[in-house]
């Protein structure tokens, strides 16, 4: 029986070899190359990236990731709770709420660059027509990060809402009904029934989303360019500037380590368990 089962490994082998060759091998070579400069082993690439404010990029990426995640979570809970009610017109709402998922990231970033353009733009056009003063959305360092966060909220909230909706559908309505009969209002029902039931489910989903957020690349590249630098735009800038290409390997190694630590935590918490036997 044991030997007979191993023949099924042949079915898995193509996919397995594929990811090993195209993913693990390149990742290992990035780490190797990060210690090389002019074919000598050295830490100079790491000194270089520390000097170009790697710590700042990590901090800003964390700010954007955590900020975007919280905004997404808040609105996703709201949306999932709207969709779970059997309202009239819910089909229309769920269709509208999924639209951002169908718009590609670069197109979304491009549209937001037009809406939030620092001079003029569609958002300011709205403000001006209601008699308000126009706002320069790019005026400060943190407002630039805010532009990225807001666009990211728009693009990815549907995804988080879908995840939470899946979790909400798994809670039997009878629990909530029983609490309702016992006199619990909608707010208390949410705090004492919905949230505890949803929490373990949300935690894993959010950690996985958090990893994606930390890898944010196309949105900031289109919206704010290389400044303020985030982890991925920093690596990309190093890579595309000939003088600093070796730095890209060092910064990429740091990025890889951060992500792998997160991945390790997620797996320890049972993130992959829904696929396991």
């Amino acid at each position: 029986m044991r030997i007979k089962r191993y023949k099924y490994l042949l079915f898995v082998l193509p996919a397995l070899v594929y990811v090993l060759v195209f993913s693990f091998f390149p990742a290992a070579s990035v780490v190797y190359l990060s210690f090389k400069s002019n074919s000598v082993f050295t830490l100079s690439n790491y000194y270089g990236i520390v000097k170009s404010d790697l710590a700042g990029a990590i901090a800003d990426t964390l700010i954007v990731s955590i900020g975007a995640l919280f905004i997404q979570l808040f609105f996703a809970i709201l949306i999932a709770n709207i969709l779970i009610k059997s309202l009239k017109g819910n089909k229309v709402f769920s269709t509208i709420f999924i639209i951002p998922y169908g718009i590609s990231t670069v197109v979304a970033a491009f549209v937001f660059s037009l809406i939030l353009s620092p001079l003029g733009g569609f958002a300011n056009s709205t403000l001006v027509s209601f008699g308000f003063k126009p706002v320069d959305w790019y005026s400060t360092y943190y407002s630039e990060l805010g532009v990225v966060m807001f666009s990211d909220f728009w693009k990815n909230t549907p995804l988080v809402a879908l995840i939470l909706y899946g979790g909400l559908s798994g809670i039997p309505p009878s629990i909530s009904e029983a609490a309702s009969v016992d006199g619990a209002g909608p707010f208390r029902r949410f705090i004492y029934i919905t949230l505890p039931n949803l929490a373990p489910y949300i935690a894993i989903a959010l950690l996985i989303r958090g990893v994606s957020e930390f890898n944010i690349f196309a949105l900031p590249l289109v919206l704010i360019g290389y400044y303020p630098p985030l982890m991925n735009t920093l690596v990309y800038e190093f890579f595309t500037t000939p003088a600093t290409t070796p730095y890209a390997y060092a910064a990429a190694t740091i990025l890889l380590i951060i992500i792998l630590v997160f991945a390790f935590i997620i797996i320890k918490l049972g993130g992959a368990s829904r696929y396991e036997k």
Partner: protein
Amino acid sequence: MKSKNIGTYIIAIILSIVFIYPLYVLVLITFEPTYLTFDRLYPYQIPVVFTLSNLEVSFKNLSLVYPVIRSTEVAFIVAFLALMLSIPAGYGLEKLTARLSNRIIILMFIVNMMPALVIAIPISVYFIKLGLENTVIGIALAQELVVLPISVFIMLGGFRSLPSDIENQALVDGATLKSAFIRILLPLIRVPALVTFLIAWMTSWDEFTYAVIISPVKPTFPVDLYDYVSRGEPFVASSFALIVTIPVIIVTVVLQKYLKGEYLSGGLGGV
């Protein structure tokens, strides 16, 4: 009860406006003459003139048409390759011992989270040596990494939901393993296979990181759009942005009931 629903409706409508507004802007800049949109400090928000001239100019500009064709080719290759690799892998993982299959699943799970940029940079160096940079195949081979783990998970779920008796019966009736797989099992997993195909297709259509590193000279549409934006002439590519968006929105809306959050959350390496 009634008044509570009104509150919910108001929130739902406000959120709907927020989610639809960018799409509305995209429609405006496509069908309004540029003197009302791009050329004004404060663009007009209400459609007053309807024109097809923006679209006409775009379609005549072959440097815009080629990236869209390229994106389409890449997306189909990625989606087919995803099926070819993930159907057998899903089947094999379902049959393997728990110990072995769980290890492979965790490996795939890690691949799923690996930062695309970290992988793309060394791959681009190899692809230059292999003559695969700036080719459709090169982009597709790299993008496959983004969709493969999630495709395997979806197919694994599909095979798990089948009763194992079906295959055994076919084997008892004298079918070989291969013919049991092709004749009996494949038709039964067409829904997860379709979901895999479409999610892989859409992920590739959206993918930017691998595309920009592997093929900067012959860009896919997202990379081309980025090039125009970074050169400060976004209006050139803007009407195509709507054209490439509409089919995907339609697919998304039609497929709504199959788009489970867990599939999608796994499939996004970098946003």
